[in-house]
């Protein structure tokens, strides 16, 4: 199978709906300046596959929802003394929700949409072709495609590559155990 494209809606630094297609390319490279949102895109891929927020540089799912005011629409001045309690105001309307969906073509050539939604209260839902499913149904379908979220052997986060070589013998056994 292969990943055809992604839709990010209010996910991290991506405001509103952003469609990103990989087309028929087998090797896609993502480039951009520091802080532009490259690792956030990888977080979106990891999130839609079922990874929990602590592996996405966040403490909870709400952190993953886009926060930010469009420059110029509100009075920016009162932002300067922004502290944590103001965060809600800062995001403008605190009631945003967010989702990431991935269009995936299975090895039999069928297109499936995996979607994971974050509600404004921080709870997440899993959907396959828009139909609500449980987390284990979701990850079972991914397992059929050899996408093993527990092993994470196909995702290398920024700054982690050297740790993989130096990981302990126990960790390596765990990975092989999950895979086999």
């Amino acid at each position, binding site marked *: 199978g292969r990943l055809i494209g992604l839709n990010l809606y209010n996910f991290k630094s991506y405001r509103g709906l952003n469609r990103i297609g990989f087309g028929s390319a087998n090797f896609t490279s*993502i480039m951009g300046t520091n802080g532009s949102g490259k*690792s956030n*895109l990888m977080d979106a891929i990891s999130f839609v596959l079922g990874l929990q927020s602590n592996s996405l540089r966040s403490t909870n799912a709400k952190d993953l929802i886009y926060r930010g005011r469009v420059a110029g629409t509100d009075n920016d001045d009162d932002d300067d003394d922004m502290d944590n309690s103001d965060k809600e105001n800062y995001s403008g309307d605190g009631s945003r929700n967010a989702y990431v969906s991935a269009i995936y073509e299975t090895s039999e050539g069928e297109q499936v949409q995996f979607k994971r939604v974050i509600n404004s209260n921080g709870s997440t839902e899993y959907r396959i072709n828009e139909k609500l499913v449980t987390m284990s149904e979701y990850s079972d379908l991914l397992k059929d495609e050899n996408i093993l979220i527990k092993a994470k052997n196909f995702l290398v986060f920024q700054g982690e590559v050297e740790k993989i070589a130096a990981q302990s013998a126990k960790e390596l056994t765990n990975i092989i155990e999950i895979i*086999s």
Partner: protein
Amino acid sequence: RFRLFDEAFQHISKSIDNIYKELTKSKVSPLGGSAYLTLSQEDEPYLGGINFHSMPPTKRFREMNLLSGGEKSIAALALLFAIHSYKPSPFFVLDEVDAALDNANVNRLANYIVKNASPTFQFIVISLKNSLFEKADALVGIYREQRLNSSKAVTLDLRNFSDKE
């Protein structure tokens, strides 16, 4: 349980050396380095640990802690690709894995990806180095749209440019 574990271990153990050689071969060392896995407990391996050893070309040490930053990155990638060869996931996402690599290693990694990328093995690679992203089939450029206070993405299919080096 033992059978499954052993099957995985044997497969990965056989492929790690070839992959490592492919990632470390150069004009100076046409054979590349060598890499292998050992079990700390032969009889019940899933209770023990698996040790990974790699020796860059022209070097003789096998302990991981003596390797340099770049040497470790290459060893790690070889291990990941070897694990993948046993039960291939459909795609890989790599975030600046080339940060510690010198130009020669970046080129070897890029060539390995170009050679192994296929409809059943898709690579999505975040990189700041042009000698890596130039070799991709397609580029996704991420930028910050200041007015909207948001990240944006544009996609460019490089295969349309016939003179792609």
